[in-house]
C-alpha cells in the first residue's frame, strides 16, 4: 500500500487564543505548535499500522512554509518513511486541497488519509476537497480502517450511530477518534528522522476562494451566579424563570 498522510500544523491545545494586526492575524507569540491531533494520532498511526502489516510506504505531506519543518520531522520520528512540503502558506482550504491533490495525482497513492478537522480553523474541508479534485470516493469521520487486498473495510460516525462500509482503493478518508492509539516517538525514531528525506516542492498556481477579513473573541462571560448547595431547587427556578430554558 502506498499511503499519503496529510498533516497540518496547529497551535497546541492549551494555547492562548489572541489576535494581532488589528485582529487580522493569529498571535503566535509564545505559542507552541503541534501536528493536528487527528492527523497524528489517527491518520498517521493507522497508516503506519497498515504499512507494517502489509508492506508499502507512508509519505507525510504538508502544505506550508519552512517554519513547519520541525513539526514535519516529528511525523518522520513517529515512523513515516519520507515527507513532502509544498512550499506555500495556503490562504484557504481549497488552495491547500488543490496542492495536495496535484501532488497525489502526479505520484499515485492507494489512499490519502487526513484528519477529520484542524483544531484551529475547524474547517472539515480539505479532505473532501482533495477527494473531489482527485475524483475519488470520500469517507469522512472514519473510526476504523482495515484492508483486505484492495478493499477497505471502514467504520464511520454517522448521526446517532455508526456505519460499516466497503470501498476499493484509491480513496480519500478523514480520520476521527478510534482509528488508532497515539504513538510517542522513541529515541531511535527521532534519530532516524534527521536523515529521512523531507522534499520541498513548489506549489502549482491556484487562487484562493475565501479570505479571513478579521477575527473576534467571544464576549467574556458575566459573573457566574452562585446557588447554595443547601437549596438546589433554586437552580431550577432560575433556569426556568431567568434563563428560560427549562
Amino acid at each position, binding site marked *: 500500500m502506498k499511503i499519503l498522510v496529510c498533516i497540518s500544523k496547529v497551535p497546541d491545545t492549551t494555547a492562548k487564543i489572541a489576535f494581532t494586526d488589528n485582529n487580522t492575524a493569529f498571535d503566535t507569540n509564545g505559542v507552541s505548535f503541534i501536528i493536528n491531533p487527528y492527523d497524528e494520532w489517527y491518520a498517521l498511526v493507522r497508516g503506519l499500522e497498515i504499512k507494517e502489516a502489509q508492506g508499502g510506504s507512508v509519505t507525510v505531506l504538508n502544505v506550508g512554509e519552512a517554519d513547519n519543518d520541525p513539526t514535519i520531522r516529528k511525523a518522520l520520528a513517529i515512523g513515516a518513511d519520507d515527507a513532502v512540503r509544498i512550499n506555500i502558506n495556503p490562504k484557504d482550504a*481549497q488552495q491547500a486541497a488543490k496542492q495536495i491533490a496535484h501532488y497525489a495525482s502526479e505520484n499515485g497513492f492507494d489512499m490519502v488519509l487526513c484528519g477529520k478537522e484542524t483544531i484551529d480553523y475547524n474547517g472539515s474541508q480539505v479532505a473532501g476537497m482533495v477527494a473531489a479534485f482527485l475524483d475519488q470516493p470520500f469517507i469522512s469521520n472514519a473510526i476504523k480502517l482495515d484492508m483486505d487486498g484492495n478493499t477497505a473495510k471502514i467504520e464511520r460516525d454517522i448521526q446517532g450511530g455508526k456505519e460499516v462500509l466497503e470501498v476499493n482503493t484509491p480513496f480519500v478518508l478523514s480520520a476521527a477518534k478510534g482509528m488508532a492509539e497515539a504513538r510517542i516517538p522513541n529515541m531511535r525514531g527521532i534519530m532516524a528522522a534527521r536523515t529521512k528525506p523531507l522534499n520541498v516542492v513548489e506549489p502549482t498556481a491556484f487562487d484562493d476562494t475565501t479570505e479571513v477579513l478579521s477575527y473576534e473573541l467571544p464576549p467574556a462571560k458575566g459573573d457566574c451566579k452562585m446557588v447554595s448547595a443547601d437549596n438546589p431547587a433554586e437552580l431550577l427556578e432560575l433556569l426556568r424563570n431567568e434563563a428560560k430554558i427549562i
Partner: protein
Amino acid sequence: MSILVYSNAVNNKIHKSAHEAVSYAAQLAEKTSDSVTAIVVGEVSDADSLGKFGANKVLHSKNEKLNDFQPSLIAQLIQAAAEAEGAKTIVFIHDLVGKSIAPVLSARMGAGLVSGAVDLPKIDGDGSIKKAVFSGKAYAHVKVNTAAKVISVMPNSLEKKEFNVDATIESFDADLGDAKISVKEQKMESTDLPLTEAEKVVSAGRGLKGPENWGMIEELAKELGAATACSRPVSDMDWRPHHEHVGQTGVAIRPNLYIAVGISGAIQHLAGVNQSKVIVVINTDPEAPFFKSADYGIVGDAFEVVPKLVEAAKSMNLSDN
C-alpha cells in the same frame, strides 16, 4: 435566482437540521430577494414540511445510486440542481452529513466554502460570514471571493423562523457517476436522544468516582429531558461509552443547557462545550476553572446536590418540555 439547500432525511422523514438549513436560507433570501429551493434524496414522506420553514420549491430525487451514502454523487446531483435553478448560494448544516458533502461540492464547483457559519452573510456590509474557529474560542469573518458560495451552518446557531410557504414539489434527477461506496451495516445507538441533537445535556466527570454512580446523572437527565455526556478520562476508563465524550478530541456540542457535574473545566473540555447557551457547574472545589465559564454554579458535593436536583425536578414536572 434561488438559494439551494441540501435537506437531509432520516428514516423517511425530513431531519430537523434540514428545517434549520431551510430557515437560514429563507432568512437570507428575504434580504437578497431570492427564492429558496430545497433538495432531498430518497424516500421522504413529509417533504412539504420544508415549506413551513421557507422553501418555495422542493426538488426530490429518488436516484437509486444514492441508496448508500455517496458524498461524491450527492455533490454531483446538487451541482446539477444548482445549474438548473441558477443557484449561486448552496446551504448545508455543518453536521456529519454536511461535512461529507459540502467540501466535495465546493471543490467541484470551484466555489468558496464557509463551514461552521454562525450568522447570515452581512449583505448590507462587506458580505462576510461569521464562523466559529479555534474550537469555539474565537470567530472569524470570512469573505468568499468566488461568485458561487457554499455555506455550512453550525447547528443551533440561528433562530428557526417559520415562513409557512406552500412548497411545490418536483422530481429531479441527474446523470451520476458510479457508486463506489457500499454500506454493509448501520449500528444505531440505543438512545432516543443523540448527544449532538440534544437541547439539554447533563455531563459528568472524574469527580463522580466510578461508573456505578451514574444512576443519579441519568435520572437527572431523564427529568430534564436531557442527553448525557462525559469528560474524556471518564470515557478513556470505560466508565461511559465513547460517544458521550465531549471536548476538543470528542464531540463538540452547543445545547441550550449544559450541566457539568464533577468536571474541572480543562481547556480541552471547554473547547467542546463553550458554545452552549447556558452552562451550570456543580463542583466541590470553588476554585475549579469551570466556574469562570459558567452562568450558574453550585459549590457542593455531587452526591448530595444531584439527588436533591432530581427531587426538585420531579416536583416541577419538567420532563415534558
